[in-house]
């Protein structure tokens, strides 16, 4: 295992060391100490390595991640896992706004709560939050799954496309063109798989599914009031 001190090595030093790991590296386990809320930690990784960040992180930790698993032993700042393509990010604490913005793939697990605009413009990522999420989450969400074991704030799924939302608790309000949907067998299977993968002990049957009503897919002047 490699242990690096962010304050000693500097952000560039740490990220350069992580980026230098080829796909067939045997240095697969890394610990970053003294994160102290720094921005852009472990962003742009592209190797199947496992990175643990000790402490809370600033903006964009794990941004654009490919393949790597990143554990954040603290809370995560805005835009964590933005545009992630694959791999996994596990946040022990809470996540700030724009979690997993535009992310295309992989999984983000939050053991605490996630703030507003969680999963904004999500494009295929799976996000599983054990607690609650804030307002305007999954705004313009295109695809992927957002699983919320607690409650969701105002305007969930506003202007969403094909992303799916599963909420166990209350939804304060649904955004424009987002509606409650029937939970079919395929959804229960999918959701149970996501919960198991995230390591959360909930039953898929306890959740409600939401998604796009698809009324705003092609502009129609009679819908103008909905925007």
């Amino acid at each position, binding site marked *: 295992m490699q242990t690096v001190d962010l304050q000693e090595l500097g*952000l*560039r030093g740490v*990220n*350069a060391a992580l*980026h230098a790991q080829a796909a067939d590296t045997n240095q697969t386990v890394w610990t970053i100490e003294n994160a102290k809320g720094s*921005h*852009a930690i472990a*962003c*742009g990784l*592209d190797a199947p390595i496992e990175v643990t960040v000790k402490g809370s992180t*600033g*903006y*964009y930790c794990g*941004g*654009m991640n*490919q393949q790597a698993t990143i554990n954040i032993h603290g809370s995560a700042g*805005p*835009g964590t896992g*933005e*545009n992630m*393509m694959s791999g996994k990010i596990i946040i022990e604490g809470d996540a700030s706004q*724009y979690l997993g*913005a*535009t992310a*295309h793939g992989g999984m983000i697990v939050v053991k605490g709560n996630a703030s507003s*605009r969680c999963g*904004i*413009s999500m*494009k*295929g990522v799976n996000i599983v939050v054990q607690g609650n999420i804030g307002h305007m989450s999954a*705004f*313009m969400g*295109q*695809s992927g799954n957002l699983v919320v074991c607690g409650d969701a704030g105002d305007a969930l799924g506003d*202007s969403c*496309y*094909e992303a799916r939302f599963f909420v166990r608790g209350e939804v304060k309000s649904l955004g424009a063109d987002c509606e409650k949907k029937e939970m079919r067998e395929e959804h229960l299977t999918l959701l149970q798989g996501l919960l198991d993968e995230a390591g959360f002990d909930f039953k898929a049957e306890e959740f409600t599914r939401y998604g796009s009503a698809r009324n705003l*897919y*092609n*502009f129609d*002047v009679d819908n103008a009031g909905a925007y």
Partner: protein
Amino acid sequence: MKSHDDKGIPHTSPRQSATFTQDVNSDIRRAAATGIYDIRGGGAKRKVPSFDDLLFMGASISRYPLEGYREKCETSVTIGGLHAENPIHLDIPITIAGMSFGALSGPAKEALGRGASAAGTSTTTGDGGMTPEERGHSNKLVYQYLPSRYGMNPDDLRKADAIEIVVGQGAKPGGGGMLLGQKISDRVAHMRNLPKGIDQRSACRHPDWTGPDDLEIKILELREITGWKVPIYVKVAGARPYYDTTLAIKAGADAVVLDGMQGGTAATQDVFIEHVGQPTLAIVRPAVQALQDLGMHRKVQLILSGGIRSGADVAKAMALGADAVAIGTAALIALGDNDPKWEAEYNALGTTAGAYDDWHEGKDPAGITTQDPELMKRFDPIEGGRRLKNYLKVMTLEAQTIARACGKNHLHNLEPEDLVALTMEAAAMAKVPLAGTDWYPGKPGTGF
């Protein structure tokens, strides 16, 4: 028409309103019939103060000229040397602006790459991501990082020679985009992770940052991901050029791309194009002032766009302090857009060559702003690339001609002192004297 009524009293001649013109009335009728605003491509069509209102004075007794064809007049420019390990070196200061794949066909993108590379300059991706056609044929490719993040992925990001964070566009400062369902082919849909045939909205602001403090962190992230190798540009609309340029520099940009209201768009509401933003002429001096106030002029490059058409426009932009320009609409025209040879088909679409701007409908007779496979066949990317190269060469020769006449051995040596203005407005905006005077409105010490 009868000039008198039955009693012999003369009719007044029919008088058209200057307020309710035929154009205005047709807009009202269209709105009344459809219930939806007009969306179109292109830039502002109204007349605004422009580079046409400036003239070069040329050489005289106090300034001697350089010999055309004999004495050298350099045109190269380096962009992004401030923070990036690998700045971009261009032979000419005329770049190709970002235009989305989706709005343009794959072959049109290829032609832009071919023409720009042959002329020694860069091209830029656009909304919708990077296509292999474009990467393959562009020696220097700038990758746009847009609010929609359609097609955005780290593999393409790492293939780019520079990154351009798009905050705004001159045609629509504060506006997002819309690619209507009819232009969403399988390929476009796949690149954007959306179902085929539905309208695709491009967000008006970035999903994971707002404001100058966040921008600084976003730039840091992009640099970390690309190892501090490639330059990072920030593109802003000509809204508040002094402050936007200042904030972009402070956030750590290597270059600022500034786009005036004449700048083209693939598709935006007409009301937006015509009524929001400032003319290109008006935004250069405030941006250059911001660079100078921070001691960053010529260190952070200023790339100006919006209605650049000729070598004269290039020379004027550079004389006012820009390091380079970018062209969109003019490049499309060089490729063959709006060519009168398609007049019969333009007429069938209810328009005429030169006025065709319904690029969002995907029916472009010239086969450039379309995803229709049949129309696309009309456009030959090799021939298109050759035409663009020729056009870029001509613009460069024109700019050199002017620079030599002003005694300059590099386009960058052109200066505001080489210019006069034809109108008070242009004098005030460009801060160069009204022709025949030594005065411009707002000149310090003059009291006006």
